[in-house]
């Protein structure tokens, strides 16, 4: 008797459909897995045997050959446990072949017969088009993102078999079946904790609304990180397409991004100074797996202390910032979406007091070394560059809490709706050719921009950024018409001057 069960495995960042063929024949009892299985797959024999026996199901005392087709691809992971078990049941005659028609299976088995989730569930489900894929209940929320009619969940092997034998229809996981994410509860960060920092707050709100890349400059202890950590809370939930992309990227990287009842929060990636270029871009050992840039897609990439990153890491940023994708060249070639909000914090100079003239005590050489660590092309891509000051003591002690995240997030969401009506998720994605039509500048605003251009504080990319930010400011003001001089003036001020970073003496 032979049975074929569709399943899928992860190969690097992508999933490959695998057909599990089980052949049960007379001969010396034995169990052979062929088709380039790795150790985890070879061990599945013991897990499957125990799971079958503890679920009260028969283990064929005959010669069993399991082939994983296509046989030429190396297969790993424990997700093939469930399809192998069902293949055995079908090939051994315990289940009708018709019962599994139109279904795919992905899941690891416990010795007690429990079905466990595997990394990459969403990608694996998407690799089996046209089939309803049975996955572990714990992975239901993630798999449900694949769309209606694409998945079903089960908690145990016995439950799967009972359902197959009963010929009951499989249905999408109900909301009540979806697990509540049980990650370690992070202390909620709220903007209400931010007591001073009027400029920082404004910059966060504008950055979250328009997805404008934000650079916070300030002395140590001024609250740059404190502010930056509160940015993600202002972002609305990811839309359906982005949510799938977010979960897919995390899935493919073998990480878990929490999904609750279809809602996906934007991810926050904050790689430390030790991150390598490969860790950032992806690739490396495991076959084109997504790196931090791809994992930040749809969310925030937070780089604290920009000057501390290796130059090779920072040099990777401009490409994805412009194109919205990151390309992994080795091993194989893969392209991952990487459209994220870049938030950086940096000290203006080694002593941290620089920026306004007269305050910095650094040697000019030390200051220019510091400035050289931050390449001009990267700095130019920050649409907002604001200097955060140490809060005065009076503002920290006994003052009223600031405006909470929820209130600001509501304004952000309202302004985002205007951008969506314009056909983009946020104004930061407005293409340059559309700017003339969407953000017309009147004479006065044009003169403002022109003056900044001539003064050398603004590049051509900067002009586009100022227009996008001005549009966001108008959206926040509830203005549907053209932006006015006030918006442009504020956008110019928020764009700031890169001279903040190297003080008066020039680079």
């Amino acid at each position, binding site marked *: 008797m032979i049975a074929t069960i569709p399943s899928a495995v992860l190969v690097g960042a992508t999933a490959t459909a695998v057909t599990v063929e089980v052949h049960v024949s007379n001969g010396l009892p034995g169990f052979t897995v062929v088709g380039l299985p790795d150790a985890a797959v070879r061990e599945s024999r013991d897990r499957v045997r125990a799971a079958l026996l503890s679920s009260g199901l028969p283990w064929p005392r005959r010669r069993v050959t399991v082939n994983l087709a296509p046989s030429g691809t190396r297969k790993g992971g424990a997700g093939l446990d469930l399809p192998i078990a069902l293949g055995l049941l079908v090939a051994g005659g315990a289940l009708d072949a018709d019962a599994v028609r139109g279904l795919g299976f992905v899941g690891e088995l416990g010795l007690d017969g429990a079905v466990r989730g595997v990394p990459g569930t969403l990608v694996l489900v998407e690799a089996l088009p046209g089939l309803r894929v049975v996955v572990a209940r714990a992975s239901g929320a993630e798999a449900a993102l694949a769309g209606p009619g694409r998945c079903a969940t089960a908690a145990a092997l016995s439950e799967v078999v009972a359902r197959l034998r009963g010929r009951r229809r499989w249905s999408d996981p109900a909301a009540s079946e979806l697990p509540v994410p049980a990650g370690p509860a992070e202390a909620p960060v709220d903007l209400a904790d931010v007591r001073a920092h*009027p400029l920082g707050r404004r910059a966060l709100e504008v950055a979250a609304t328009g997805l404008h890349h934000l650079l916070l400059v300030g002395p140590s202890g001024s609250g740059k990180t404190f502010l930056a950590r509160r940015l993600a809370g202002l972002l609305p939930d990811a839309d359906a397409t982005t949510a799938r992309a977010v979960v897919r990227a995390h899935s493919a990287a073998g990480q878990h991004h929490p999904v609750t009842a279809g809602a996906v929060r934007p991810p926050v990636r904050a790689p430390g100074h030790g991150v390598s270029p490969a860790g950032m871009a992806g690739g490396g050992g495991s076959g084109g797996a997504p790196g931090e840039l791809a994992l930040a897609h749809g969310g925030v990439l937070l780089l604290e202390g920009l000057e501390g990153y290796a130059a090779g890491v920072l040099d990777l940023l401009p490409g994805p910032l412009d194109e919205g994708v990151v390309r992994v060249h080795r091993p194989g070639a893969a392209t991952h979406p990487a459209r994220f909000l870049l938030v950086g914090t940096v000290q203006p100079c080694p002593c941290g*007091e620089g920026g*306004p003239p007269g*305050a910095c*005590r650094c040697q*000019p050489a030390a200051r220019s070394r510091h400035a050289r660590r931050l390449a001009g092309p990267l700095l130019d891509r920050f649409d907002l560059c604001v200097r955060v000051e140490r809060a005065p003591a009076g503002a920290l002690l006994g003052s009223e809490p600031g405006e909470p995240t929820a209130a600001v997030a509501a304004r952000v969401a309202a302004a985002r709706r205007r951008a969506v009506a314009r056909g983009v998720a946020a104004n930061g994605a407005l293409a340059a050719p559309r700017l003339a039509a969407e953000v017309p500048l009147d004479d006065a605003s044009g003169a403002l921009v022109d003056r900044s251009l001539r003064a050398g504080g603004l590049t051509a990319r900067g002009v586009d950024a100022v227009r996008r930010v001005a549009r966001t400011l108008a959206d926040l003001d509830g203005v549907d018409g053209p932006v006015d001089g*006030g918006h442009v*003036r504020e956008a110019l001020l928020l764009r700031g001057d890169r001279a903040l970073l190297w003080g008066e*003496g020039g680079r």
Partner: protein
Amino acid sequence: MSGPGPATGRHALDDEAVHAAALAHLPGMTPRRLARLLDGFRPVMAWRAVVAGTHPGDPHRRFRGAASGADPAAVGDRCRAADAGVLLPDGAGYPVALAGDPGAPAVLFARGHPGVLEARPAVAVVGTRSATPYGCRVAAGLGRELAESGVVVLSGLARGIDGAAHAGALGAGVGSAPPVAVVGTGLDRPYPAAHRLLWEAVAAAGCVFSEAPLGTPPRPGVFPARNRIIAALADVVVVVECHRSGGSLTTVDAAARRSIPVCAVPGSVLSPASAGTNALLADGCTPVRDTADVLTAVSLARAARGRPAPDGRPVRVGPGGTEPPHRPGRDLDRVARSVLDAVDDVPTTVETVLLRTGLSLASVAAATEELVGRGCLDAGAGWWSRR
């Protein structure tokens, strides 16, 4: 500008000067070692003694190998190519003020007209490299007015105060005193690079001195050494802006050891760039409110040394003294007025203004633009200061 004195350079290098320059350019040479080699030796003799290994100032024959392989004439050519004159303590052009000085350089390189220092009072205008707009304005104003009063403005051509003082002195009218600079790097190594043109202009109008051999890069140690020469050349040292432990304080120490009066320009107590100068004032230095204060100090200093005081040209009062201090008009609206009140004399950042006024960023942006347009505020990269 007065007529330039004898120019150094192409024709001024005799055999002694060439050998002195060659000694100074030996690898590993320091001002102190050079002084030992030239103590009691004429340069040509000193060179021969070093090559022979018999120089008592080089007991370990440290320089013998390098000197044997070196050609003094090549160094002379190099100096001529760089238009650098070589001044020896007993030779022409060597500043008289340095002659009796304990720390006088044994060999001094010069570009321009070293004679401009003779018969003119000199005031060192020095200060921090990270100067505020206030400090730069004061330094430029002092530089111009001192030059117009016939006083040589002496500084180090560094960023900030030094450069502003020199630029001010160069901006003075015809017949003014030329500026003089003492630099720490080699004369062919303008530093900072941004001051290359200023450096050329000072050399063309006045003189640029350096005790460092050609090609000496900026490195720690050369600037404090340079400061002692500035102090020794000056009749009065004026510190315009200086941090609490700024490099200008080495100039002040060198001046104090030579009993040269030190004056300081008062600054805001809020400004870190004025912490050093305000401390000097608290220690009893003469405060400088305007050029007249400096000229008084110069007269007193020269009277004490038995030298003629600066000629009695009319002096305009007030550093920068072109216009009286601006009083912001009463016609400002309430928002602009509160923004103006929130900005200090020292650079005040955007966030500080927002905190102090409680206004929205858009209102502050509009108000500051108006205030900058009216000339009430100076604008910088993310900050404003009162003009």
